[in-house]
């Protein structure tokens, strides 16, 4: 959808050459790592497998499968958060840096609600009912946070350069994190234990039930969202505003309300993602929103910002890359302690995508104002 044609560069500057070298180096490292990994899987005694890392052990099929499923479920969560970044970017053209904190608010309220339910005994006796309740509570809290944030911090800045809005959103993010610290304390807080039947690994695929639950919940939310955006009046106005605010206003669409709706829907998705985080990791702290937020933004960029399907796909891609990448690329290259570098890998994916395909894997959909 990108309209501006890229300049063909007849003249390459030193920086361009540097970037070319950088791209090829990165691709070569990935390629070498993958090759070493494959070699190892074929025959562990293979000299190529031992070339960089004599201690490499490779992965068993079950381990690999476990990693992929873990990546997919986390990726689904990133995807849900990424939707919020992508939709707001599509409509307002700025990165709502504080969206990660909206997600954190969902995870926090979910934690509070689930603990109250566990105290009351409902968590064990009726898990699905409790889950529904905490999802609704988290959606309510995250949506409220997103809407208030738009009203208080972003609406006064409408029409100002994107940097002003971006810096403001950084402030909002910082503020919300610390609101959580002063109200709820700086310590990490736990979700109650999940029921046995959910955490057990199921026989046919050896996959934990929680992973499946996460993927199912994310899928359902995505389907609901797709229905909202593609099939309802509200969704039409959202797409219209994303396309061109002024024309949409002329067509009788209430732009303010549509923008609020966008924030609300993004917030709701982040609320769901917050609960998924709680289910996956069972622990939440005020900085919970930061890294998943950045990664979800990366996912939105990977998928092509403004593109909703792309956001979900980007989330899954990034989640998988982050789970599988360190062990299949870095470990065979002899990097020790690769699991520490998981987050660095996620950032590296973002940087690589922006270097190689700045409009994302699935293309951008931006409003006309942003394209110019």
């Amino acid at each position, binding site marked *: 959808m990108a309209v501006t044609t890229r300049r063909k560069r007849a003249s390459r*500057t030193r*920086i361009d050459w*540097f*970037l070319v070298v*950088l791209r090829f180096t990165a691709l070569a490292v990935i390629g070498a790592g993958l090759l070493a990994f494959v070699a190892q899987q074929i025959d562990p005694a293979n000299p190529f497998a031992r070339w960089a890392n004599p201690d490499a052990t490779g992965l068993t099929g079950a381990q690999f499968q476990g990693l992929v499923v873990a990546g997919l479920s986390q990726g689904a969560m990133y995807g849900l958060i990424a939707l919020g970044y992508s939709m707001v970017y599509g409509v307002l053209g*700025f*990165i709502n*840096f504080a969206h990660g904190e909206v997600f954190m608010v969902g995870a926090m309220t979910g934690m*509070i609600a689930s*603990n*109250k339910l566990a105290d009351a005994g409902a968590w064990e006796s009726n898990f699905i009912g409790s889950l529904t309740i905490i999802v609704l509570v988290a959606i309510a809290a995250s949506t409220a946070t997103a809407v208030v944030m738009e009203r*208080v*911090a972003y609406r*006064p*800045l*409408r*029409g*100002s*350069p*994107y*940097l*002003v809005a*971006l*810096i*403001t959103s*950084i*402030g*909002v*993010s*910082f*503020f*919300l*994190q*610390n*609101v959580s*610290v*002063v*109200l*709820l*304390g700086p310590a990490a807080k736990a979700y109650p234990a999940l029921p046995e039947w959910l955490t057990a690994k199921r026989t046919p695929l050896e996959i934990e039930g929680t992973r499946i639950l996460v993927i199912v919940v994310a899928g359902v939310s995505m389907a609901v969202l797709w229905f909202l955006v593609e099939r309802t009046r509200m969704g039409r106005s959202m797409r219209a505003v994303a396309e061109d605010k002024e024309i949409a206003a002329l067509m009788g669409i209430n732009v303010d309300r549509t923008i609020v709706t966008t924030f609300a829907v993004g917030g709701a998705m982040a609320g769901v993602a917050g609960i998924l985080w709680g289910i996956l990791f069972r622990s939440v702290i005020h900085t919970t929103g*930061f890294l998943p937020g*950045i990664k979800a*933004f*990366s996912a939105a960029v990977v998928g092509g910002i403004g593109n909703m399907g792309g956001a979900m796909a980007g989330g899954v891609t990034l989640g998988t890359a982050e789970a599988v990448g360190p062990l299949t690329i870095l470990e065979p290259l002899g*990097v*020790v*302690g*690769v699991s*520490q*570098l998981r*987050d*660095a890998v996620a*950032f*590296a994916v*973002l*940087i690589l995508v*922006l*270097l190689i395909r*700045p409009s994302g894997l699935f293309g951008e959909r931006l409003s006309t104002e942003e394209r*110019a």
Partner: protein
Amino acid sequence: MTAVTDPTARAAGADNPGLGARPVGDQPWRRISGMVAIGALAQMFIALSGMPVGLDDRTIIEPVLSLGYLGLVWLPLLMGYRAGCEPVLEGMPVHAKGRREVVAGALVGIGAGASISILVLLLHNFDLRDPLVNWGPQLAEVLGFGRSPGFAVIIWIAIGAGGGAAAGSLHLVPSPIRRAVIAMAATVIGAAVIERVVTDLAGGLGLGTAADRLYAPRGGLSWPGAVALAAVSGIAAGSGRGRISRTRTRIQTLEGTTRTVTNAALVVAAGLVAVVLPLLVGKITNELLANVGMFVLLALGLNIVVGLAGILDLGYVAFYAVGGYTVAVLTASASPGIAPELPWLAALVGVVVMAVLTGLFIGAPVIRMRGDYLAIVTLGFGEIIRLLFLSDWLSGWFGGAQGITNIPGVQVFGLATVKGTDPRAVLYLVMVFCALAVYVSWRLERSRLGRAWMAIREDESVAEVMGVNTVNAKLLAFVVGAVLGSFSGAIFAAKVGSIFPSSFLILISIIILVVVIFGGMGNVVGVIAGAVVLVGVLGGPRQPGLLQELSEYKLLVYGALLVWMMIQRPEGLVPNVGRNRELHPDEFRQDAWLRGRASCGEHDKGANAADDSEARRR
């Protein structure tokens, strides 16, 4: 990437200062009820954040006011004032003021008081300690004045109503009185905040007894001291209408050599103060000033990147880390990889080289990106660099989580050793580098490159069409900023004597950004002032400031301040004098009118925008 990239140049009409400016006369009561609700919620939040308890130990005025209670009282006062503040477009007739201002202020105050009262009642009847950590008897004790809930309810509503009404009625009194009242409040609170510096300095000057009169033995202003200060500042502010700004204007309008001489004199005076001050104050104050100085240095570096070139670099902490680790590796005997044990000054060469390389390495990939992507990607780089220093993979070089310890101090040509145990020496070292950074900023701003940066900040695509090689210019900004930031890291390593990845959290980048924006992007004086005020009073990420008691809340304050600044005053608190110089008042007024800048009451227009900002700060 269209139009203006500079946050401060806002399109007309978008210049809407949030709460304060709905259209004139458009349902004022709706706006007031909104403010009542916001005030009540904010007040409830302040109480629940535990500030009243956590800050109760710090006294402002000996028997009557602690910082904890001040935390609860300022909001109804400020919002009461804002509620009565009718937005007036400059050049439009001023709406007649009357009872409404007072009533609005009182309503907002009552709202805030009522929310505390409700909280008191809730505290007595429910236990919500589970999610809310500050819920408990201590909070009930402070909020209830240690008496019955009924008494507290009456008192809080009375305080709210009285305070709000008083604040609202400030609109009705003549402006000298208003100025005097605001000056009195600001002076008293300010004096209480800087107590430690004042007593320390007074001791150094042999005026210890005077300081003892002013301050109570157990901290805080003594009440006679507070009254005396208030009287002096009130009289000064009430009578000296605009004298400061007039002096400023006079200095600015000086011509040719007189002006150069005046400027030179000011610089020399500032230099003298900088040399003498550390000798007069004690170790703790020097330590504080040294910490402030390191942030001044970081902020000056970031100011070149963000303020001059308009590149939002959120990974600035990476250069701080690179500076610190380079010094650690090159000077410490305990460095796990190579350990050449160079002297600090020699290592500084390595620091510059590494900073330039890192700047180029981070800068080259991001420099062509859209500004917002650039921000996030630099943030990513900042985090990657910290993760690499932390990783086991590179622990053979950088010690992983154990960091590098036993970093020697700075040998200054065999004359002295500067290290953390001697904060005065560190302060002098920091000041040398700050002076260097100021010189660099000052020279570059007035050079071909500086102009190119400003043009890029204003409108990048036009700058390119006007012949500026934007890629090179931006990369240079990145590198210059990197070098200045790495100096701060180098000093940090020598000062602390050991270095860990946890010293280089992303949060530092954000705090430096707040400092730069608070002071005013692109404005060297403003940025220095911003760093001194913010880091001096609130403290850095780890370093305590003058309000040590605030340490739990300082990040909250930084976040709130950043949002507030961007919405209300994106140009920073200290207006960029150089830019506005020689503006003719007529044109200034016209311009202000064109921008449709809504403002409160009858601010002196244009010419003394500085005065304006003073008033707002209070």
